[in-house]
């Protein structure tokens, strides 16, 4: 069975006052990037990606989600790319960014998240062909990551 290799690039354990984390100087030597968040937030919100400080409306998102007994999907355009949902309960968010160092394609990310309120599957397309060198993981609406939340960035060799 093939084994993707997760090489740790950076990790931060949060102290409860952060609404955004920025990974910079990301090496260009991997095929994909993976962001993993294990923890909670001070309110229900969406951890979202912003690449290379691009705050334009260049992020296209399609999402499927399920609550207790309902489910739905939606698509929209935003100034960042949502990759999951977190709230005050313990949550897991895994966002996989494909071909982040390529310069001939728009970048896509697959986000999956779970907690006791909402499941989400999301796809983000960043309408830009630049290689990703800076990755911001921000909470939508200014919510905060809770104390003890662990966020890690991994590289996967191609």
């Amino acid at each position, binding site marked *: *069975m093939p*084994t*993707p*290799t*997760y*090489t*740790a*690039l*950076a*990790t*931060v354990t949060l102290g409860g006052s952060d609404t955004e*984390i*920025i*990974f*910079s*100087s*990301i*090496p260009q030597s991997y095929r994909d990037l993976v962001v*993993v*968040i*294990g*923890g909670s937030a001070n309110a229900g919100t969406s951890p979202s990606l912003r690449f290379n400080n691009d705050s334009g409306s260049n992020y296209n998102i399609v999402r*499927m989600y*399920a*609550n*207790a*007994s*309902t*489910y739905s999907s939606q698509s929209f355009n935003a100034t960042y790319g949502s990759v999951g949902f977190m709230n005050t*309960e*313990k*949550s*897991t968010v*895994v966002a996989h960014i494909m071909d982040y160092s390529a310069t001939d394609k728009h970048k896509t990310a697959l986000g*999956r*998240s*779970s*907690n*006791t*309120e*909402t*499941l989400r*599957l999301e796809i983000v397309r960043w309408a830009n062909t630049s290689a990703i060198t800076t990755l911001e993981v921000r909470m939508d609406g200014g919510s905060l990551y809770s104390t*003890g939340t*662990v966020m*890690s*960035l*991994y*590289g996967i060799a191609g």
Partner: protein
Amino acid sequence: MKVIQHVDVGVGGTSSISFTNIPQNYTDLFVVASLRNSGSNAHVLIGLNGSTSNFTERYISGYGSGQISSSTYARYVGNVGTSSYTANTFGSTSIYITNYASSGYKSILGESVGENNSTTDWAFAFSGNLWSQTAAITSLQLTNESAATILEYSSATLYGILKGTDGTTTVS
């Protein structure tokens, strides 16, 4: 990511796949499983430290042209191939557990697909479980609903994922 343990199910099958004595020096756990069972129920269940209680779940599944979501299940982490599935097909399941050695509650993300030519059997499942226990995870069990036998040629691999830094990437 490093392999902690791999299990191949042998002749006669087994009632469960269990990973024990899980080392506590990783950050997250990741399980990849290829499963088929002898019964008619496709759900694969997770147990932690031998516990089957204190699980809260959200679940969504798509099959043929139908969908379902629910919070009434517990411990479902995916689907396996069943006795009614196309011969020689096995369901694929992945499970991600963050901060498994911490003293907080444990969050579990499950994804799976069980391919079948029929349009009426489960095909895709996505789940989130919260295990409301503070104990570090030292063992992990996979079973089938209705206690069906996990068949020969099924397999499961437990990986450990370790956080850290490469000395180049910066965080602010």
